[in-house]
């Protein structure tokens, strides 16, 4: 068991190192940021001074090692555009993104589970089939497209909801939150639905498959034979058993929700780290892009590591198989 965990942690570390090299070298090729930062009237020596100040005159491998050394100290460089620490810029925007991501996941669970159970209980009915057909839509429609349509319907045509921004935020436990004010709630509604749609489709499918699998089981028959009400059978016995895969997958999908928040944030001008990434790519603001990527890589690797280890704790088959390999 310990061997397995150690091996996994080492692997995760290796992935982070490899990704940091790829990201750094890759982003380096984008082009010299000096070209955009200087103005044409600058003299040759001023340009050199800028290049030197940013450390861009050294060879790339040396820049990489300086970068790693600083990264370990929690410093991923200064933004070329904002002149602030890149990490700080991103960390400041984490609450906005996480709020959006978590609200979306809650929306997808609250909407997806009942629909999925319904479709699982009545797979041949018109409503059940419509839910499944709807879930194909949820899967297929691109994130930005959904956002666009929602903006058009509810912001432009009906004028009920705002199309951009975060609205009024209130500080709760030291974090700015939109969901605690009415204005903020109005602002988060459309982006969270946008981000939640494809995950809702996924939850619907998982819940339906789970219900179909659980229903023929003996313990369900037994519960019914005991004379339990239909409602109790479904909401206690069935629900409990279908929640395991749903919770696992939702946990794993957190990374992808944060990734897709990049798109949603751009559409709704949501001031999170995804929008910062897109703006920084546009501005060739290398330190911010690198810092964002390193943070996301770190987050994803940790997420996968935790899930893997939890799995091996819960299911001995996984670690046995791993030992044989």
């Amino acid at each position, binding site marked *: 068991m310990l061997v397995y965990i150690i091996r996994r942690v080492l*692997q995760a570390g290796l*992935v982070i190192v490899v990704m940091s090299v790829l*990201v750094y070298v*890759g*982003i380096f*090729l*984008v082009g010299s940021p000096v070209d955009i930062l200087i103005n044409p009237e600058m003299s040759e020596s001023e340009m050199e001074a800028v290049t030197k100040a940013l450390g861009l005159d050294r060879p790339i491998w040396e820049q990489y090692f300086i970068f790693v050394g600083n990264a370990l100290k929690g410093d991923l460089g200064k933004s070329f555009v904002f002149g602030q620490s890149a990490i700080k810029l991103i960390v400041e925007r984490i609450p906005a993104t996480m709020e959006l991501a978590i609200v979306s996941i809650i929306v997808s669970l609250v909407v997806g589970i009942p629909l999925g159970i319904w479709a699982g209980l009545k797979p*041949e009915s018109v409503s059940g089939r419509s839910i499944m*057909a709807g879930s*194909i*839509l949820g*899967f*297929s*429609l*691109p*994130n*930005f*497209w959904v956002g*666009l*349509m929602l*903006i*058009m319907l509810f*912001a*432009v045509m009906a004028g009920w909801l705002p*199309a951009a921004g975060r609205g009024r935020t209130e500080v709760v436990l030291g974090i700015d939150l939109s969901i605690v004010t009415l204005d903020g709630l109005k602002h988060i509604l459309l982006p969270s639905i946008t981000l939640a749609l494809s995950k809702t489709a996924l939850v619907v499918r998982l819940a339906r498959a789970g219900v179909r699998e659980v229903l023929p089981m003996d313990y369900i028959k037994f519960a019914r034979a005991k004379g339990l009400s239909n409602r109790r059978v479904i909401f206690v016995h069935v629900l409990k058993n279908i929640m395991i895969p749903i919770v696992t997958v939702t946990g794993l999908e957190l*990374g*992808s929700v944060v*990734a*897709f928040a*990049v*798109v949603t944030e*751009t*559409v709704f001008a949501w001031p999170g780290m995804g929008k910062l*990434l*897109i703006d920084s*790519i*546009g501005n060739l603001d290398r330190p911010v*892009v690198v810092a964002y*990527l390193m943070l*996301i*890589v770190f987050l*994803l*690797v940790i997420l*996968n590591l935790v899930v893997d280890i939890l799995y091996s704790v819960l299911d001995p088959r996984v670690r046995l198989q791993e030992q044989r*390999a």
Partner: protein
Amino acid sequence: MTRSAAEPLGPARGRREDTPFRRFVSDFAESKLAVIGLFGFLVIAFLAIFAPFVTPQNPYDLAQLDIFDVRLPPGEVGRSTGITYWLGTDAQGRDMLSAIIYGIRVSLFVGAVSAVISLAIGAVVGLVAAYFGGRVDSVIMRVVDIQLSFPAILVALILLSVLGQGVDKVLIALVIVQWAYYARTARGSALVERNREYVEAATCLALGHRRIMFRHIMPNCMPPLIVIVTIQVADAIALEATLSFLGVGVPVTEPSLGLLISIGFDYLLSGKYWISVFPGVALALAIVSINLVGDQLRDILNPRLRK
């Protein structure tokens, strides 16, 4: 889906031989949605392939555009061009209908080509992993796992921000993102096929590895791969549209649907909905119809769901 839904096709059954292909067709036709999807896809593909013959205007030819026809609402007639702009015009006075059909062309091309290339790469890698097993297998699958643990959109976004804009670069990014799905699927079914008697027989005949892999095992691994292809084509189109929307995809000179939507997005808030919404509708139709087909194919070709 009930079996009885296929009965109307019955008369053909009695007289003609029941070939696997015919069974496949009738299985497919069981879902009306899938048939609608297939029809929709064929129409879209037809329009895209014959774009120069069906559009009223060549949207890439600046000489055909009239700057007085800028941002006309749907249904207006161009003063000098004489074209009725059924879907309006954009900021350059381009007929939206023509722009959309040409846009579909770019989107479908990107989706199909990236799917074929990633299928080729992924299938070979997956087969090699399953066939040789051992260390080769674990190294390949570890890479696949790591690749799949990163969201596709993020990987593609980064690749394109590094590579720059261009259809070829979008293709590279999509292939890098998608090959792993094929590899995993190919390995999964090849592992099963590998232990079948016919492979043993081929091994006894002392046939070469390559021949066994590609002539014997590969054809039997195709059904699940075909399902993945349809789903991945739709995914690739959606991904390309998203990337172009974010401004890192195809260049403005050859706008795909995503880029058209992105350009129109600026006008959406001022009520000029058509520049953005119509390409959006076209994109959604294309993706949804491919997915409807893919969904039904998965149901048919998945042996576990077969009754």
